[in-house]
């Protein structure tokens, strides 16, 4: 379950399969943008695996590279962005370098994507039924009855009355449209669904009910989910494992509850501390002052160092690797080699 990056040769075509059981194997993935002033590495050597039926959350703020990572996995990157190293294997087969027609066999059947503001991705001048039919016909389903039945079934799965198949998108509320997009992603019961901030455009109550729905569906149909969001408190209730990204790199990665109870990376700790509590004692918080680094000229050492309340002298010069502490990976010199160190209370902590 850990993801220590090994030095691997990036390869195309069929790769030896990853660890048995892993449905998605991302290794050493890097994405670079050809910007005006020089190349910008938006995703820097990210590795992780997703097991069947697992709910993986990817959390980070704007500019951390989480959306770019998602696009790279789904092979949706377009120039000026491109994958410059690493490997993405789905069910043992590499996705990088496949042509569109080869990808089409995988897309939507085994792997589907729900984008941010997907509710705006619906064609405003056609009703829902037509759009579902389009998607199914594009993947070889011809029979009208089958299309109609399946459309109604997936709508019911997300809690929408199938009578809405006849509606136009503007006749549905924002929450319903988002559910419709998720239903569309379910048409072929894929094994992996990738979601990019599907709830961020919704109000708090609709957000929560949609999350519950997704989790229910996932447990019922047993598909894996990669869920990208900036809302850490929301995802904490639903994900099995959580990956925190910062400035294009993985900062911390491990079991969700572990991460929340004992955040190892100062960024994770700072992030959690930046959420004022709605219940519990009221106290003054500091957030994380400062801004993420400019990825066109990343700093020589740790990328979080300028904002880190626990930075040491070496942090500005040495780039931390991902170290393993128990079941969690953390990119921080404080946990180098799982060595013993003292935290702020003076207690000694070992790996």
């Amino acid at each position, binding site marked *: 379950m850990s993801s220590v990056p090994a030095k691997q040769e990036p390869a195309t075509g069929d790769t030896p399969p990853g660890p048995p059981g892993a449905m998605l194997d991302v290794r050493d993935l890097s994405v670079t943008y050809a910007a005006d002033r020089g190349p910008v590495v938006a995703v820097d050597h990210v590795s992780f695996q997703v097991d069947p039926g697992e709910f993986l959350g990817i959390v980070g*703020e*704007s500019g951390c590279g989480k959306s770019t990572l998602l696009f790279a996995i789904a092979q949706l990157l377009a120039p000026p962005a491109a994958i410059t190293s690493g490997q993405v294997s789905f069910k043992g087969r590499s996705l990088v370098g496949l042509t569109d027609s080869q990808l089409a066999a995988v897309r939507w059947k085994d792997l589907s994507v729900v984008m941010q503001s997907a509710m705006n991705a619906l064609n405003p001048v056609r009703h829902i039924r037509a759009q579902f039919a389009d998607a199914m016909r594009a993947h070889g389903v011809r029979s009208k009855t089958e299309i109609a039945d399946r459309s109604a079934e997936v709508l019911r799965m997300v*809690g929408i009355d199938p009578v809405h198949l006849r509606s136009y998108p503007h006749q549905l*509320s*924002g*929450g319903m449209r988002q559910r419709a997009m998720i239903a569309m992603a379910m048409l072929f019961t894929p094994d992996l669904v990738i979601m990019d901030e599907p709830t961020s455009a919704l*109000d*708090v*109550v*609709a*957000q*929560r*009910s949609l999350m*519950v729905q997704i*989790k*229910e569906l996932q447990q019922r149909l047993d598909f894996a989910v990669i869920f990208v969001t*900036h*809302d*850490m*408190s*929301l995802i*904490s*209730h*639903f994900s099995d494992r959580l990956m925190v990204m910062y400035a294009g790199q993985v900062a911390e990665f491990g079991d969700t509850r572990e991460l*929340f109870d004992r955040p190892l990376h100062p960024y994770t700790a*700072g*992030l*959690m501390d*930046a*959420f*004022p*509590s*709605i*219940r*519990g004692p*009221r106290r*003054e*918080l*500091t*957030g*994380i*002052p400062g*801004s993420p680094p400019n990825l066109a000229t990343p700093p020589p050492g740790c990328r979080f160092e300028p904002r880190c309340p626990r930075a040491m002298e070496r942090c500005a010069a040495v780039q931390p690797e991902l170290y393993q502490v128990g079941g969690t990976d953390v990119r921080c010199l404080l946990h180098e080699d799982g060595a013993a160190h003292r935290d702020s209370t003076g207690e000694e902590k070992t790996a």
Partner: protein
Amino acid sequence: MTSTSEPTANGTALLRTDKLTRHFRIGNALSQQTLHAVDEVSLTIGEREIVALAGESGSGKSTIARLLAKIYKPTSGETYFQGKPLSGFRSRADRLRYSGLAPMVFQDPFASINPVFRVSHGVLRGLKLHRPELSRDERYAEARRVFEVVGLTPADEVLERFPHELSGGQRQRVGFAQALAMKPKLILADEPVSMLDVSIRIGLLNMMADLRDSQGVSILYITHDLASARYVADRLIVMYAGRVAESGPAEEVLGNPRHPYTQLLLSAAPDPRAPLGVGAETDRGEPPKVIDPAPGCRFRARCPLAIDKCHQVTPELSQIRPGHQAACHVAEEGAEVKAFG
């Protein structure tokens, strides 16, 4: 509304609205309908206090901000600022003076500053308009002062920058600096942190509390996020579908919510430190668009406690405890209100 005068944090009402209402006509020539964006909202804001106006989209909170900033004219009702009615501010001098006393800070840090000019432009213009007695050097000194107060240091350097050279959080601080330069009594902040990264929000919320303490400014903090409202506000007003659902001291309202909608909002607000207790039946509804509404409580369709009266009579705000009011028939009758969570 029941005229229980709410004791505010410091006694005097800086701003008071009386049944403020704003409707919009929608539809075409054939079918005219009226959208009730804000209905009969009576609220008060005292000196040196932060009042949070919380609600989801469509609740009317942004419309209230614009009514108070005199961007919209009310359909009916009145707003009193320092005792004087806003409708009486007709002359350009009056309106200018009011806009200096109650300036607005906008939500989108990328759209609320003119990208063509340096960030000093807005502040200096504001000073020129509202404090004409200052000389050019004094204006610049004042611009530097307010930039320092909001934490944009070194002020001289930041003043010379263009908006695209600043981060979202910095741009929002510029918005507050612009407001401060006019020596306001009340800042109308329309979702000032919603579009910022989470790690930056706290810094701005702390700054807002500091403005209240050190500059003596009141702030109307409009938000959809109850947690941040709790963090920074003295009093909390919860809106639903254009009407006030509940209002009172922030801790009191959140600790002892009496309106079922407030309870729903509380139960839906995620808190990472709370245990994983996600219920299976969660309310799925969304706030209604209030078009030509019939009388009755607008929350009745989603409320598990709705009684007959809720379908017939629109509830008014009634006092639950001193300072704490809720517009709910069930709560009014003193019954134990435990709808959600």
